[in-house]
């Protein structure tokens, strides 16, 4: 893909935002507002700026990453702004901040490359775990955890009248993937060897397994204390997949699956909120007014959208709980139909293919695992929330990368794209 095509595709994403920003108020019977001009301007500034940053600090980066991220962000933003105009406006600011942060990432890594991240791996581990556990800080502190919708995954920074909420889990996932990539790049041989035997089961040295077990433990802690099914499942799956990527041993995913089954059964048995989720998944209409409500409303939205959708602005996202965040895809599929929904899924598939392509082409294990781990995070998160909306999986409250409203999520995923771009630059010809 030429540089011109890449730039043209980024402009196309801005055009999508412009058209969406014009259509949404029209559908409500209002004239287009200044958002109509603001949105494409912000998209051009954010992704154009990021494009320039990539040209300058990672010129050999894969050229599919930015246009895909821009397109998904634009389509998501159009739906977010249509669901809630104020959130749409806020999301534009988050987009600017996120693009700046992504550009800053590229700037910091411009000389020494992603390899420098290996030096700070234990810092990343501690920071990642710390961030994950941050929401447990008691209420009343200046930095404190907040429980929203029964899950304690928010942190609120309070300084005088100013307050800022964020989801530290989004940043934590990047730090933990960076740690795992670095740790596994050094230890993958030790973890591949399995000298110890326990009956018919071969085991690596217990010493080598310790950090891995710690990581598993943390994901369960997140589940238990924060009631955050989505983040814990995401971490867990990404751990297991990265172990498998590093060692090529099926024993790890098999063990993870066994743990997941055992842990899942135990969680189902002992945690009410897990049981409720599973019940709502299997029988969303049994407790229609209660636990099944969100899933059922999502299905109604999907069904009402049909093949071609109701058209932008003609759906009823006001009926779907969390339409701007976790259920943005249900709102989108109602208005753009199966056609629009499949296009979005295809865009994620292309992004996944690009990410894995970068990982496969990378020569050094750390870069391989970093690119692979980041791509896995992106795809697993996408499949978890889409599978939840579509009743393929129990619903786990987690954002849809690039599309859901949410600053933390957008920031983290834009930085993720910057990291992927940097890895592909370093391994590019």
């Amino acid at each position, binding site marked *: 893909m030429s540089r011109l095509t890449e730039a043209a595709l980024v402009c196309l994403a801005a055009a999508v935002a412009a058209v969406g920003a014009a259509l949404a108020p029209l559908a409500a019977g209002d004239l287009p507002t200044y958002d109509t001009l603001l949105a494409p301007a912000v998209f051009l500034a954010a992704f154009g700026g990021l494009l320039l940053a990539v040209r300058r600090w990672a010129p050999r980066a894969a050229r599919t990453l930015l246009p895909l991220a821009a397109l998904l962000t634009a389509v998501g933003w159009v739906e977010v702004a249509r669901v809630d105009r104020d959130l749409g406006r806020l999301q534009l600011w988050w987009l600017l901040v996120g693009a700046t942060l992504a550009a800053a990432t590229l700037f910091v890594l411009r000389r020494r490359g992603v390899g420098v991240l290996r030096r700070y791996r234990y810092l990343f581990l501690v920071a990642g775990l710390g961030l994950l556990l941050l929401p447990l800080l008691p209420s009343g502190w200046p930095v404190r955890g907040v429980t929203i919708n029964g899950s304690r995954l928010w942190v609120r920074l309070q300084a005088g009248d100013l307050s800022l909420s964020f989801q530290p889990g989004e940043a934590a996932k990047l730090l933990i993937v960076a740690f795992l990539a670095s740790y596994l790049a050094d230890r993958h041989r030790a973890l591949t060897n399995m000298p110890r035997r326990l009956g018919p089961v071969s085991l690596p040295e217990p010493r080598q397994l310790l950090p891995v077990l710690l990581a598993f433990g943390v994901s369960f802690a997140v589940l238990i204390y924060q009631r955050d099914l989505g983040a814990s499942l995401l971490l867990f799956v990404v751990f297991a997949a990265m172990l498998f990527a590093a060692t090529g041993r099926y024993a790890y995913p098999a063990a993870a699956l066994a743990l997941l089954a055992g842990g899942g059964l135990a969680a189902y048995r002992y945690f009410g909120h897990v049981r409720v989720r599973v019940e709502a998944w299997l029988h969303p209409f049994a407790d229609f007014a209660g636990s099944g409500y969100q899933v059922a409303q999502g299905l109604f939205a*999907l069904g*009402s959208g049909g093949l071609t959708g109701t058209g932008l602005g003609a759906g009823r996202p006001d009926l779907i709980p969390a339409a701007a965040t976790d259920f943005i895809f249900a709102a989108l599929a109602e208005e753009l139909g199966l056609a629009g929904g499949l296009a979005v899924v295809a865009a994620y598939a292309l992004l996944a293919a690009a990410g894995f392509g970068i990982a496969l082409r990378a020569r050094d*294990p750390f870069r391989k695992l970093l690119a692979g781990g980041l791509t896995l995070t992106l795809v697993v998160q996408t499949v978890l929330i*889409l599978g939840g909306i579509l009743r393929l999986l129990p619903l786990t409250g987690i954002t849809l990368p690039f599309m859901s409203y949410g600053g933390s999520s957008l920031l983290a995923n834009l930085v993720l794209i910057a990291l992927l771009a940097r890895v592909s630059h370093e391994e590019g010809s």
Partner: protein
Amino acid sequence: MNPALRRLAAACLAGLVLVAGGLTFQQAVAGPGYRDDLRNPRALLDRAERPRGQIVTADGVVVARSEEGADGARVRLYPEGDLYGHVTGYASSYFGDTGIEATRAADLRSGNDGSLTAALFRLLGGDLRPHQVQLTLRDDLQRVAAAALGEQRGAVIALDPSTGAILALVSHPGFDPNVLATGDPAEGNALDADPDQPLLNRAIAAAYPPGSSFKVLVAAAALATGDYDPGTELEDRDELALPGSTAVIRNSDEGFCGDGATITLQRALAVSCNTAFAALGMEIGAGALLAAVEGAGFNGTIPFDFPTAASVLPPDGLADDLPALAQTALGQRDVRATPLQMALLAAAVANGGEIMRPYLVRAILNADGEETSLTRASAWRRAMAEEVAAALAQMMEAVIADGTGWRAAVPGARVAGKTGTAEVPGGAPDVWFIGFGPVDPEPGEPRIAIAVLVEDGGSLGEDGSGGSVAAPIAQKVLAAFFGG
């Protein structure tokens, strides 16, 4: 590491393919089920939030309108209560839509469906306010018909024979659409379970034995053969033994119809002579009778705003069964007709043999009351030749002037008609009057055709007859039409 990474990539793509499959299933396969699920509030909200236009009569009386309630939701109101219930139907989120509310829902809804096209249309100054539906019904005739029918179970339907426009349509017992649109569902369910069937539109959706009113068709069949005219002499009998049967046909007063020798066809119709018509039916035969009956629309479907019950004369075996043919000629046995069908028969005679397609909606009006589209009258079918219709009109005028239909006479108007008293085994008769006026109208003179049916002899019970119960009801409607 690459083999493992490749497998992970494959697994990720498989996951996304699964998502695409799940999406396709939920939207394309299971989708319609979710869309139409009663718990899916979309249709309800659309109904509550989108303005709905008025339904008005031809003379401007509002019979359905919407009012915004305190909570912002719109409430459908029917100011005339049960007078127009069977025509307007109701728009109910619980029971669904019926009547004009259902058939003209697209016209009544606001044009603002939230689409881009609608938004652009409005930006360009287009009018998206909901349209009004103007009925062909005349409020004055509707009121007179309802009052004349009173508490008797039955139906009155009147139309303009030259256009097919329905002028009055009453079915009793009726129902108040307000109850179904906004009331307690229990009250609506009670209406549905009521043994008197108030939700049944007897004018179009119920078929009854037409009795002697059917003789108009027998006469039409005879005239169509060319072997008969109104003056043709028929044998006057006091009783007629049916061949191959022990059954005997008698006249209603058990005597002769005339002088005991012969009686003209016109006179036989005027006094509703059973023996003469039973014999006539057997004379002309099943083929000629069926041709005339089906020509008038029996055994077919009447094109109308609403589904109608079938009016039937089962043709099987009629040719070989003379007793059955004789009884059929009297409108008994297996003949069934809706009041609408019988009104159309009267209209055919009034309109030179041609039946116009009946319709209930005169025009669609915009929110300011200006016509945006007008229903154009169109012919449905030719029931009989023009000469036959002219002869029948003359004969039916004699029914009013000097026959069983004298109670339908309107001073100063040339009214024609026919009574009918259909015997119902083990009960009081269903009584009829069909008619029209004026006979031989001036060009442009207003015309009306009418059918009245009263179940179980109405207020007179077993003693009821078409002449004594149905004709006076028709007279009031005809008088109102010609008097006004």
